[in-house]
């Protein structure tokens, strides 16, 4: 038993899994690996990414945390600007999971080109898809946290001792590069079996958004125009059809998180359940509920079409796009008056839920759990691109061009066309983004980047002790009765907002500790 027989005896491979060293041989392996990269968009669990997307709404004037019957620890430190969010679970999970996704993509980008099989076109496409995803992951990080460390390879702990944050500019440059390189290779569209993969115009659209975030207006205008002119997309005729389980991957869609109902696997969108009504026939969790402030914005704008497709309110006697209201209410054990939709105001701060993620009764899947709902998350759609383009044109003083695309969105929403210029137009475009794209994970990033006439970021005028949102909610005369009555989530949200702190989320304390302080915190957080 000495010598080589002994080393054979001590060599027991781990079974049932594949070793990275011997992976990346066949085309199938590369394709499967990329599927794993796409999986990292949300991991199809409620807590990794969806929860953070909802948290971003909760930090705006569009939403409350909402749930007033359970512990609010996942959100409150950030959503109510308490200044102690370094260990906020939703924030920390998101940060960690985005880097897990980035590592998956890094391995794909490094290893797929070295694979032995002979299909260079496929290799190039898969690498481009991985770059698109990595670019998206970095974009989501930089707009939330500012500059973060860029890691573009698979490293061991001793290789990153002393790691520091890159600047926001450097991260944006990485985002731009990834989207550009992806766009050069990716096809404009895929065959039916591959719908959902990143396309050339998804990459260009995201690149345009990245330019807008950086106020690189002319680059944004050019690249967004390319998307508009590609001929691949068109607005849906009805605003109400944009968000529906039956209109996943519709003609307006540029990039969507793909979902599917599978009994055995979790491939769903968690938001319809996590942000759903707790006093429903099918229970929701009521985290992230639309505010009366958002409702008022629709009403003030005379925008009733999008209002009814965006907000459902306690006591409503019908729900847009719900033909089975009676059956829905018959199945509800909580409601005493079955003629009215019931959102228990004692359990829901605003007594409102979001219509975009509401699933009509008969369209609900056989199992109502957070990991099963087949509603694709619209990450980038043409209306968003139109409004980004309009914004860029307005900033470049091409107001006529801006109005063309702004009006396309308005007309679809049954709103009158406008013909404006300069700051007026800018205001209209900004409002339009709020109304069109509510609850689509845009509002927080928009109000953080827009500068108001007083030179402050828009968010600083909404939040803070004198913020419009705060003022309205803390005055009984202007506050919404539901919101005023239910103080289990306090109405003074935003009072403690600090403009030198709350325009960025805190880097997870974990990173500061684990790097021995070489990763530094954003200002104001301690």
């Amino acid at each position: 038993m000495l010598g080589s027989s002994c080393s054979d005896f001590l060599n027991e491979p781990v079974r049932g899994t594949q070793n990275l060293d011997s992976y990346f041989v066949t085309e199938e392996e590369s394709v499967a690996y990329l599927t794993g990269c796409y999986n990292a968009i949300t991991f199809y669990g409620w807590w990794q990414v969806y929860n953070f997307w909802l948290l971003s709404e909760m930090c705006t004037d569009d939403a409350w945390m909402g749930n007033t019957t359970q512990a609010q620890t996942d959100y409150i430190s950030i959503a109510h600007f308490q200044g102690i969010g370094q260990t906020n679970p939703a924030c920390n999970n998101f940060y960690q999971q985005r880097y897990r996704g980035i590592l998956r993509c890094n391995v794909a980008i490094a290893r797929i080109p070295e694979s032995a099989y002979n299909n260079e076109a496929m290799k190039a496409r898969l690498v481009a898809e991985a770059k698109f995803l990595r670019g998206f992951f970095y974009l989501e990080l930089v707009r939330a946290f500012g500059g973060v460390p860029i890691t573009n390879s698979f490293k061991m702990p001793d290789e990153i001792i002393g790691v520091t944050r890159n600047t926001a500019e450097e991260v944006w440059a990485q985002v731009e590069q990834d989207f550009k390189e992806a766009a050069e290779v990716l096809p404009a569209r895929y065959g039916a079996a591959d719908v959902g993969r990143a396309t050339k115009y998804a990459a260009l659209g995201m690149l345009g958004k990245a330019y807008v975030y950086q106020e690189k207006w002319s680059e944004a205008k050019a690249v967004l125009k390319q998307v508009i002119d590609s001929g691949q997309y068109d607005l849906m005729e009805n605003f109400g059809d944009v968000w529906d389980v039956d209109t996943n991957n519709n003609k307006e869609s540029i990039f969507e998180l793909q979902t599917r109902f599978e009994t055995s696997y979790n491939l769903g969108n968690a938001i319809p359940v996590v942000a759903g009504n707790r006093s429903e026939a099918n229970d929701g969790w009521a985290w992230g509920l639309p505010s009366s402030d958002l409702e008022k914005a629709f009403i003030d704008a005379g925008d009733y079409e999008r209002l009814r497709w965006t907000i459902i309110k306690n006591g409503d006697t019908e729900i847009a796009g719900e033909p089975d209201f009676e059956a829905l209410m018959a199945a509800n054990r909580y409601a005493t008056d079955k003629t009215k939709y019931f959102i228990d105001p004692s359990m829901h701060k605003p007594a409102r839920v979001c219509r975009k993620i509401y699933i009509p009764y008969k369209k609900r899947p056989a199992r109502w759990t957070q990991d099963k709902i087949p509603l694709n998350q619209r990450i980038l759609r043409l209306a968003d691109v139109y409004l980004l383009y309009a914004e860029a044109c307005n900033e470049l003083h091409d107001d006529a061009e801006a109005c063309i695309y702004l009006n396309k969105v308005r007309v679809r929403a049954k709103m009158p066309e406008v013909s404006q210029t300069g700051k007026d137009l800018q205001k209209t475009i900004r409002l339009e983004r709020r109304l069109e794209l509510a609850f689509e994970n845009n509002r927080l990033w928009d109000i953080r980047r827009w500068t108001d006439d007083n030179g402050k970021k828009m968010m600083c005028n909404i939040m803070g002790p004198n913020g419009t949102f705060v003022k309205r909610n803390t005055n009984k005369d202007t506050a919404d009765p539901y919101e005023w009555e239910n103080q289990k989530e306090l109405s003074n949200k935003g009072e403690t907002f600090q403009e030198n702190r709350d325009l960025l989320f805190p880097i997870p304390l974990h990173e500061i500790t684990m790097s021995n302080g070489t990763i530094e915190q954003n200002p104001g957080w301690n």
Partner: protein
Amino acid sequence: MAEAALVALCLICSQSLFAQTRVQVGGVVSEADGTPVVGANVIEKGTMNGTMTGTDGRWMLTVPNGATLTVSCIGFDSQEITVNGARTNYQIVLGEDTSFLDEVVVVGYGVVKKSDLTSSISTIRGEDIVDMPSMNAMNSLQGKVNGVQISTAGSPGASPKVIIRGITTTNGTSPLYVVDGAPLSGGIGSLNDNDIESIEVLKDASAAAIYGTRGSNGVILVTTKKGVAGKPRIDFSTNFGLQHIPDPHMADAKEYEQVYKTRYSNDGAVDNWNGKNATNTNWWKEVVKPVALTQNYQFSVRGGSDRFIYNLSLGYTKQHSQFEKGFSDKFNIRLNTEYNLAKWIKLGFNLAPRLTSSQSYATLFTGSMSMDPSTPIYRPQEEWTDNEYSNFARSHNNQSYNPVGQQFRSDGKGRNYGIMVSPSITITPVKGLTFLSQFNVNAGVSRSDSFSPKFDIDSAHEYATVSTVSRNYSESFNWSTTNTLTYIGSFAKHNLTGMLGFTAERFASYDNSASREATPNDSDPLREVGAGTQTEHGGGSSSFNTLVSWLARVMYNYDNRYYLTATGRVDGSSRFPAGNKYAFFPSVSVAWRFSEEAFVKDNIDWLSQGKLRLGWGQVGNQSIPSNAPLTLLRTNARYAFGDGFLVGSQLSTVGNTNLRWETVEDYNLGLDLGFFRNKLNVTADIYKKTSHGMLYQKDNVWVLGYPNNLWENVGSMEAKGWEFSVDYKDAKGDWTYTVGLNLSGVRNRAIKFSGQGYVYSGRIESGAIYGENSIRNEDGMPISRFYLLTCDGIFQNQAEVDAHSKDGKLIQPNAQPGDLRIKDLNGDGVINEEDKSYVGDPYPDLMVGLNFSVSYKNWDLSGNFYGTFGNDVLNMTKNWYSGINGSNVFAGTLEKAWHGQGTGAGLPRLSYNDKNQNYSRLSTFFMEDGTYFRCKQLQLGYTFPRSLMKDVRLRLSLRAQNPFTLTKYSGMDPERPQYDGSALQTGIDNVAYPSPRTFMFGINLSF
């Protein structure tokens, strides 16, 4: 006495030698009571001429006339007789050796006389184990083996937690178990207590180093009973007991309602009390049975001749849970045989099949304590549906699940078949040289089934929309081979034992699992995976580990005064990456038996034994998963594309290719003293254990993107401790008595953990605490202490609230009279994380075991006590059952809660929104002194006199286990919090299964 080991040693030591034809003499060697002494050596003094007594104690030898014969056997005083030619028949009565130190002790890969030991080893004998019946023999070591912290749980078949001499690693504290020379993974719960001859605990590294890679948490050697030559002896015994868990006394419906409403009225709010169909249900009584059964039956027969000895035993043990459902049982058979093929060759064959089964149950201590007592068990009959699982009432006023309904739904069972087989061969080619080769197989198959029905008690909160059925199968097949060559020799005053060995082990396990949902209905015949209609899941894997080792040991002593033992072991393990597979573990120990020095022997007659021991050694820890060095992918990341989905692959583990063993280095200094012919024995040890390159699953910056924490050799921990034990035994007339006291203490310190900041653990997510850590570790500090806010009493009036301020600002702005005052330790005027400090230690300062026995004529009485001193417990029951979250409360809470200046008994005011966070943040308010001293067993026995029963021995006994506990701790069981958790988190009381009080009746019959 360790008969089996004795016989073995006698066999090995005995020699058949040349005989000169002079005088043939013979006779019988017996004990004082006439029992033949088997295997005694009768040797002509000064020669190599000798023989050994047979099973009847007879011997025959031819010697020169006038020769002196030395008659000796281990366990007896030696005798010398002079052969007188006229007499050929000698009746020799050997007196029992009263020197306690001269037992034989099993050490790794051999045995030594206790007096020759140089390291720290404790022995407990089979009688002491069966004397305290339980489902796991380790339970009976509690308080009897010094330096070993054993914590027990009350659930059926629970294995106790065993910590030998403190903690030097975060990777588990469980020692290595070796049964008859074969390593056994997973503890000895499957063994039959009655089969155990002795258990040896190798406590220091100089003893454990011979087990190399797995010795760092100590080693427990179990020796099973062998046959004894002679006519068959039959033993039968049974113990039958009733277990009881004391009622925690929760509030009745009336007090609960008052507490509930007061919480709101105190806050000026309107309560939402639901009084519809209110009743008064005592949930504890409905759910927890007043008594549960435990039973145990043993049968054994042993005997043999000088050629063949055997021991056959059968045992059955069953322990019920304290609930309507749930038990754990085991049925064991063991056949141990030895066959002397020739004088120089012996075969051994042990066979031990086992069958264990269990029924699962819902553990509902907390469930019945928190449930709303105003809720009836069932909903009104007019609401009943066909689904009998749905007819239970939903808790009216809180979120607790109906515990009766929970137990009713519980349906799980498991069964495990196993067998241990070990053939062996012992060859003694020349005098003093023994070759032993042993092969061991331990294999088993186990199945577990579970079913949970569809039900709807409350479709929002207490329901299952589909039934789930699952089955898991697993098989294990572990083999090992041990081959040793031992030489024992003496030259003048030099005594030498040398051993060389080679061992190889392979552990294989195979498992698969299947589950489905939605059986057509909940009826019993449909509770099969195949009947499920959706969500088909299947899993399965195999895993293998191997270990090869070379070992060597030298034991030398000069004149039984100066001792030296040195061992070395080279281990190779499949768990470590190429290049790091092998490691070497040495040890050296020395002893000086100063009582054998002439100046002591001749001058101090009250000192019968005196030995000083010093040992050093290195042992290892290899308890990492097999995949720790590997970077692996799993194909289980799905994504929806087109009209379907693809199954993708993802990094599942990032591995560390530089992993090495964790090494523990250990120094031990010990002193053994015996006084007055060893009536009084004292043993004292001090030790220091330090781990190096501790294997730790280290957290890293998330920027790396790893899916797991990487296993790394970081960190170092240290355990420093002491042990002191004193035993006294004596007999006077019809009285005999013994008393033993064990005292020990150990301090565990983290020299270096992760090297990066604090390591938090003890996360609490129950009661009103939503995810707060209670324990913090940092480099250079004692491990795992409670790190909490300091509660400084209750504000008695507004003036006190106002006085608790800093620069005119209230430190606790939300506080009212009746709320907890929290110390602002850093003086910054706010209460936050920065005001936490180390406030308690879950590890005891002192562990005490006290054992006594007294017998008078046919009566015997014994008692065993165990306690820990100076340990703290985080009592989460105080959080759960004090009115927060609407849970039911301990009876008397209304009065105990503050309700005006100077009122209450330590609880803050009742409040529903708890603005001061009395209950929603952790403070010393929840921490209590966990010191306890518990009577583990009291036993009274009566043995019928031989005059009455002739050849039959009959003993009746009454036992009380855990009859009483001395403690100030207010929770249900001060012992259980130590059982739960790991090195990094222990001492938290979550009302897990407490130890029951058990009253047992036993019968022992032998003939």
